[in-house]
């Protein structure tokens, strides 16, 4: 227990700075940080000098300036300002990504199951599909599809497999469109009420099931309730027409507000949301004992959220037009809503139309009646769906193969049926393997839609390129791209993570 004093005296207590591990560690790190920052500063100052020398502007005001851009399709084909053009482009990119993810998932599952099929021909076809599509660059596939589509017959009333219903021509694809009609908003309110009721029904059925142990299928009951309300709503929706005047009042109120109110409100909402998210995120990373363990990815997410929210706040503060626009659009929104509810009782919630063909200048083209896909959109869409389906198919196959044989045998041994085995044993375990890499594929798909620039479809990158070619605002446009794509990536990874966590709960 005792220490010989001689030993203690012989040990030197002082650690020289250049041999102290902790000092060395921090000095190295700070040195690296300085080198990185120094390099960035050097590059930035060089770029700044060069930009000034070439009179290139780095302001964001191009967003409000008029531009001359034609957008291939989407919510606005002749946007009046740069901001509006980028907005329309963003909607196009999102439309591509979301529909692409949806169809690629379905096709991917089919491909993955076909790869495991008992049937030799089906298996071989699926293998060929995967091996061909995986090993040819997406861009090559995209331009190949594009060149194949351009060779289609010219548009006319009788082009397409189903006359008058489905057109496939060198102007793209057009099919009948179901759209929401005048009575929709009143009907939507009915359905909303239905959802509320369904929530209570579900809770009740769940309680009954927990108590008695009988199978009461609460989810089915809830869905049924919503369906019943939707069906009844088709006939009784005019009962909500009194909401029109209410919305009118709100619109008038908004019109009388000063510009500062939405500015403060928007900033507060953004900061508040970010704060809540960060708080919840941090508390989700806290262990039961209260220890905080935050990985670097988490740090990145938190910091990105904070920086992004501050950036949005700065944008709101500097760009007064935005808040004015928000206020106006709020007013417009309510005015529109008031309008929507102010219809007579005979209006239908839904309507459908067949595609039409109109003369645009010298050439016939699709009109606005049908649901049309331009050639560019179609080629990007098919290319990303096919390409991603090959990868998702491999994930699905790997996931199913990863479920050990013993699991099915055990399930059989306890007397589960074939369907039950798949639903309760195979699928949950397979999904756990399939989901993370598939989430990655969703990310890739979203990023891959940026190749649309090669076939002239107006996505973020194509419109951004046009904007900076016209205005010279390279850096701001690139900054907007980065912000947009990073937000998409983070959103998808958050959603996939959420599913993952849920799957793990199901597994328990």
């Amino acid at each position, binding site marked *: 227990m005792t220490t010989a004093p001689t030993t203690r005296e012989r040990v030197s207590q002082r650690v020289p700075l250049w041999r102290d591990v902790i000092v060395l560690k921090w000095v190295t790190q700070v040195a690296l940080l300085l080198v990185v920052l120094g390099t960035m500063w050097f590059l930035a100052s*060089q770029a700044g000098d060069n930009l000034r020398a070439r009179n290139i502007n780095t302001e964001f005001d191009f967003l409000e300036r008029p531009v001359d851009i034609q957008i291939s399709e989407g919510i606005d084909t002749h946007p009046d300002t740069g901001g509006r053009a980028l907005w329309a482009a963003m909607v196009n990119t999102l439309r591509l990504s979301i529909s692409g993810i949806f169809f690629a998932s379905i096709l991917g599952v089919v491909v993955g199951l076909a790869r495991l099929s008992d*049937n030799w021909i089906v298996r071989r076809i699926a293998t060929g599909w995967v091996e061909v599509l995986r090993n040819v660059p997406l861009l090559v*596939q995209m331009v190949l599809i594009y060149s194949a589509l351009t060779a289609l017959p010219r548009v006319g009333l009788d082009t397409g497999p189903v006359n008058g219903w489905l057109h496939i021509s060198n102007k793209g694809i057009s099919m009948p469109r179901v759209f929401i009609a005048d009575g929709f908003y009143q009907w939507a309110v009915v359905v909303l009420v239905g959802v509320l009721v369904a929530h209570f029904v579900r809770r009740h059925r769940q309680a009954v099931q927990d108590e008695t142990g009988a199978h009461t299928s609460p989810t089915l009951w809830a869905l049924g309730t919503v369906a019943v309300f939707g069906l009844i709503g088709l006939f009784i929706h005019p009962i909500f027409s009194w909401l029109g005047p209410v919305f009118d009042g709100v619109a008038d109120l908004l019109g009388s507000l000063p510009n500062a109110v939405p500015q403060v409100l928007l900033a507060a909402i953004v900061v508040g949301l970010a704060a809540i998210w960060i708080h919840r995120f941090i508390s989700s990373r806290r262990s039961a004992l209260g220890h905080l363990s935050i990985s670097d990815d988490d740090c990145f997410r938190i910091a990105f959220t904070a920086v992004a929210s501050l950036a949005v706040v700065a944008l709101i503060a500097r760009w007064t037009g935005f808040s004015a626009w928000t206020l106006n659009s709020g007013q417009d929104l309510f005015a529109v809503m008031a309008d929507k509810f102010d219809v007579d009782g005979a209006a239908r919630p839904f309507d459908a139309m067949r595609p039409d063909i109109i003369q645009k200048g010298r050439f016939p083209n699709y009109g606005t009646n049908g649901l049309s896909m331009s050639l560019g959109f179609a080629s990007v869409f098919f290319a990303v769906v096919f390409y991603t389906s090959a990868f998702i198919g491999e994930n699905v196959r790997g996931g199913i193969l990863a479920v050990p044989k013993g699991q099915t045998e055990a399930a059989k041994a306890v007397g589960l049926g074939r369907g039950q085995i798949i639903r309760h044993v195979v699928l949950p375990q397979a999904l756990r393997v399939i989901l993370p890499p598939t989430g990655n594929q969703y990310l890739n798909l979203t990023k891959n839609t940026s190749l649309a620039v090669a076939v002239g479809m107006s996505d973020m990158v194509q419109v951004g390129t046009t904007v900076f070619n016209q205005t010279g605002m390279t850096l701001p446009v690139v900054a907007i791209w980065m912000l947009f794509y990073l937000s998409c990536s983070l959103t998808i990874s958050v959603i996939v993570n959420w599913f993952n966590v849920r799957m793990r709960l199901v597994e328990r």
Partner: protein
Amino acid sequence: MSELSSAAAAANVSGAAPPEAPKLPPRQWAKENLFSSPFSSFLTIATSMVLLVISRALLGFIFNPIRQWNSTATNMQLFFTRAYPDEQYVRVWSSLAAIIILTSVSMAVWRAGSSIPLSRLGRKLLAGAVLLVLLALLAPFSASATIQWTLVAVCVAAIGEGIRRSAGKGEDERSVSSLTVLVVTLAGLVASLWVVPFGHHTYIPSRQPRVLAESGTVALTTKLPWTIMLLIAVAAYLVGRVIRERLPLNPTRVTLLVLWLLAPPVLIYLVLRDPSFDMGHVVSTDLPIFAAYAVGGSLLLSWLTRPSTGEAGRIVAVVILIAGFCTFLTPMRMVVRLDMLLLAVFALAAPTFAGGPRNRKRYVLGWLGVLGVMSWLITAINTPSTVSVPGGFFIGGFSITLMVAVLTLVLSFPLGIALALARTSTMPIFRLLATWFIEFVRGVPLITILIFFSIMVPLFLPRGMHLGEVAAVVIGYVLFSAAYLAENVRGGLQSVTRGQHEAAEAVGMTTAQKTLFIVLPQGLRVAIPPLVGHCIGVFKETSLLAIIGVFDVLYIGRIVIPGQTEFMGSTKENLLFVSVIYWVFAYQMSKASQRLEERTGLGER
């Protein structure tokens, strides 16, 4: 649902591999694999019909007389090297020969290839014959062409059946090396160049481009070099076998790996670019700088690697590093700065490799080697090329695709490993910087990075300095690839258990030694399959060069050739050809990676 259940059942029955049942008689095989259930029978019939319709359409497309396939044949040179001058073409062939020699010798030394049972080979040939017959029947051929194709199919079938008969059964089943099969196939292809009338296509890019298409075999300038290449490959393989038997194995392998590493820059600059050195400048400036660094650096490093040097050495190394950064503050030759930084890196790593006289000598030799290669590269880059082509970057097509892919991989590999190490490091700032970089780059599409770099790199450079567009784009590729590579390597590094780290620390290794001798060898071995996947990805991503406007193979196939007056609108033919080129390479790489995975799975671990 029943499809899913059958799939799940299949998965459970067969495990990883789909059931192959070669022993079954055909009728039983068909019953089990095609008509096992009503649903399966329905699927068989339906998919066969669809397949027939699709192949009929595809063949109809390919063999349609209006297809301008001679646009592809005529522009073959454009596809592969673009505007490379004919009189200098021997350089392309020699660089190809160098790669072929390296490949063959490596295959011999590493004992690549496997043995294929003759019966399997015969069955494959028979299957090929069946496909040929189907092709002859489905394609819109004239009657004589159909008969010709059928005859070829019958020949193939006969050869296949002959091989199958001679295979023997049971114990004494004979097999053949896969390399033999490869050589025979290649020899057949090369022989066909001399015999089969593919046609003789040339393109004369004068004021009025003319197309010459004669019947007969291909030009001598095509068939002769390919024949020589095949002979070189066989000869090099034989030499490689002698080397494997006569020379010690490990040094040979290390030498080959170093040669592989050196091959891309050397071939790109010596063979394809061949700088015309201004010898006066080299003697007056470059050589003295090299000599000064070689002598000074060697002395310094030999002192630093003495085990007795201790901390003083580290301090000296840090001083050199700081001096290296300070050189950027005063105007001087770039080569001086880069050499200084290189010396600092070697000095910092010196204590790791300190040891006896043999170690020290090796370390100094390593320094001299790296310094020599770097000095030569810098001099070569700063010297005009002897190949002069009016207007722009002369090389293009598939060459530039390969060049960008190889450069990207070679440059991003060290960067990616460094990023992965930083991301798994215990030092928070390293980790944070690496994470931010990786997540940022992985979050945005490659095309935005390429556009950014092709615009921004000229702005980043100090006035008076220029960098070609291809070089700027390659920087973008390298950063992008490094971020993804880092994630793959990180997966490998994380598979190294904590016990390994502790064991290395417990025997007194420094962090550098631990990383170099324990963590990286194990981590990288685990990361091999995803890394090969990454290589395929980079190769495919080079197609994005076309969007930037570089004359890569896709740009030529999509824009350049369809723009020639003779071949207006031949886009589809050429794009199909481009897809086939990409597919062949990427598919072979992915097959190779699967074989590699199987081999490492079997090897000792």
